[in-house]
């Protein structure tokens, strides 16, 4: 254990903890130093000036997990990086937080930065200012879980939780060169996750490698009687899928994902990854997901419609920001007008419109029907495939400010990740290369419902044959 502790993975640290060579406090103080040193550049955390050492009743046990600011932590600020939730301190822990504590680990008191209410793909829409990509500080880290991904990439966190509604774990993992998994819908309890789009949201792990990802999924998975949409299926030990022979696995490559708009460097890296896996005996096949081009429009109707309703509770009555006004309706309108950021307002208005009288059938209902078709595309393919392999994002990280003025262009950066949320299937992003400019490229692996083990087997096999996950950003 001569390396800086913060630069290790959780499974490496666990060895040290087990042998009693290190203590949990050591990890905390290593991270504390690292955050103080590098977070002024990265801005992965909210209020990092507070540091990790303040607060006398800190619980340090196990390996601390960094938590996205939309997951409720009892007694500690949770505000979705929004002015409207200013000062909100949840009186309860999310189920995933309880599970982390029950497993003997703990959570960092600092929350990670994100796009306000997870509305975005760049972590620029935050009341706390943008997070910077550790590989190029002028670039975005992706979003909305950009803070979690950047914290893990920059060694400011050992591992982290994010949430993924249309790619918000996988796309930032791809941009930051780390491993991010969106589990099957219903695998991880959503209780305590401040909802963006209830039928799409899942919490998932963002980690330095595939092994850690399986470990963290082991901890947070499982049925929760407090979440009607969590599924009562046994949780396997996901680490047992690591190291399984991948020979003979049947993997589809959808042709609709390799079209105009896909950066040639990304395309080349993914093809190279396919070659690597092919050499290990994985069988590849070109397949078709016919309704791929409709995924983004379907998503932007369903997600904004659900969000418009989920965010109605932020009205200044019980918690958070309230604009002063003598009259109730004006209080509502000003509180929400001033409390929500630009993108939040845009999505609430779009979602409200899609549900409003006269437009419901043409937009919302139609989107739900096309969602069925998108799900069916996957169902058909998975009858004969184990996994599907695609790029995570059409490009590597883009420049801060590049897409802020053009919401539609921003929305299209999730084009490869959204379908998995619509279909409820699991998907991972893991590093598979660097661009000429030194930015990470991500590989996405999708699997059928509750087949995370297949993803882990394939991802681990790839990772063990490559070194991309060992590269560290220079924070410049």
């Amino acid at each position, binding site marked *: 254990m001569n390396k800086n502790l913060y630069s290790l993975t959780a499974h490496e640290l666990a060895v040290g903890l087990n042998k009693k060579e290190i203590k949990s406090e050591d990890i905390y103080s290593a991270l504390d130093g690292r955050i103080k040193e590098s977070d002024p550049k990265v801005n992965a955390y909210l209020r990092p000036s507070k540091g990790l050492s303040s607060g006398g009743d800190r619980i340090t046990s196990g390996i601390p997990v960094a938590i996205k600011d939309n997951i409720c932590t009892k007694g500690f600020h949770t505000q979705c990086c929004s002015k409207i939730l200013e*000062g909100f301190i949840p009186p309860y822990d999310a189920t995933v937080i309880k599970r982390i504590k029950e497993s003997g680990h703990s959570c960092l008191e600092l929350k990670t930065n994100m796009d306000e209410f997870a509305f975005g793909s760049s972590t620029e829409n935050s009341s706390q200012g943008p997070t910077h990509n550790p590989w190029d500080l002028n670039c975005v880290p992706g979003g909305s879980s950009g803070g979690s991904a950047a914290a893990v990439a920059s060694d400011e966190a050992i591992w982290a939780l994010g949430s993924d509604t249309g790619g918000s774990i996988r796309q930032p993992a791809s941009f930051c060169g780390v491993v991010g998994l969106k589990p*099957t819908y219903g695998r991880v309890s959503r209780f305590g996750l401040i909802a963006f789009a209830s039928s*799409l949201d899942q919490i998932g792990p963002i980690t330095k490698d595939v092994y850690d990802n399986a470990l963290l999924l082991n901890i947070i998975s499982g049925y929760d*009687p407090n979440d009607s949409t969590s599924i009562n299926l046994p949780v396997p030990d996901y680490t047992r899928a690591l190291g399984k022979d991948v020979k003979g696995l049947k993997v589809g490559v959808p042709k609709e994902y390799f079209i105009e708009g896909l950066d040639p460097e990304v395309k080349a890296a993914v093809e190279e990854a396919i070659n690597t896996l092919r050499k290990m005996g994985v069988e590849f096949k070109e397949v078709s997901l016919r309704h791929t081009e409709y995924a983004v429009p379907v998503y932007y109707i369903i997600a904004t419609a659900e969000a418009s309703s989920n965010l109605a509770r932020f009205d200044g009555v019980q918690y958070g920001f309230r604009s002063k006004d*003598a009259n*109730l309706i004006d209080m509502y309108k000003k509180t929400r007008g001033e409390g929500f950021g630009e993108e939040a*307002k845009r999505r609430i*208005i779009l979602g409200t419109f899609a549900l409003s009288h006269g437009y419901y059938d043409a937009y919302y209902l139609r*989107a739900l029907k096309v969602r069925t078709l998108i799900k069916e595309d996957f169902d058909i393919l998975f009858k004969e495939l184990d996994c599907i392999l695609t790029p995570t994002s059409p490009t590597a990280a883009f420049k801060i400010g590049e897409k802020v003025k053009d919401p539609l262009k921003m929305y299209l950066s999730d084009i490869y990740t959204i379908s998995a949320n619509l279909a409820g299937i699991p998907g991972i992003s893991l590093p598979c290369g660097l661009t000429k400019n030194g930015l990470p490229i991500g590989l996405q692996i999708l699997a059928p419902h509750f087949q995370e083990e297949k993803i882990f087997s394939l991802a681990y096999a790839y990772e063990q044959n490559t070194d991309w996950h060992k590269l560290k950003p220079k924070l410049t």
Partner: protein
Amino acid sequence: MIDKETVEYVANLARIELKKEEANMLSGQLGDILGFIDKLKEVNVDKVLPASHAITVSNVLRGDSPKGPLSAHSVLSNAPLKREKFFLVPKIIE
């Protein structure tokens, strides 16, 4: 594409006060986004059932057994304004 009256109608439903520039900008941007979304009209959805959930489950129920409430302190600790054990809101003038 989407006129300002519609934006204002929807903003009122959503109880969001928009500044003039915001309303103008939204009316343009939403127009673009809806134009893009109109792509969905190409798809034949006759006889297709809507999917409101990602996973098919049904009959998720709990037993009628009481659980303890939050403490009075927790309930009101985040309140912008309170009076005794109540949340306090401005007068309701419709």
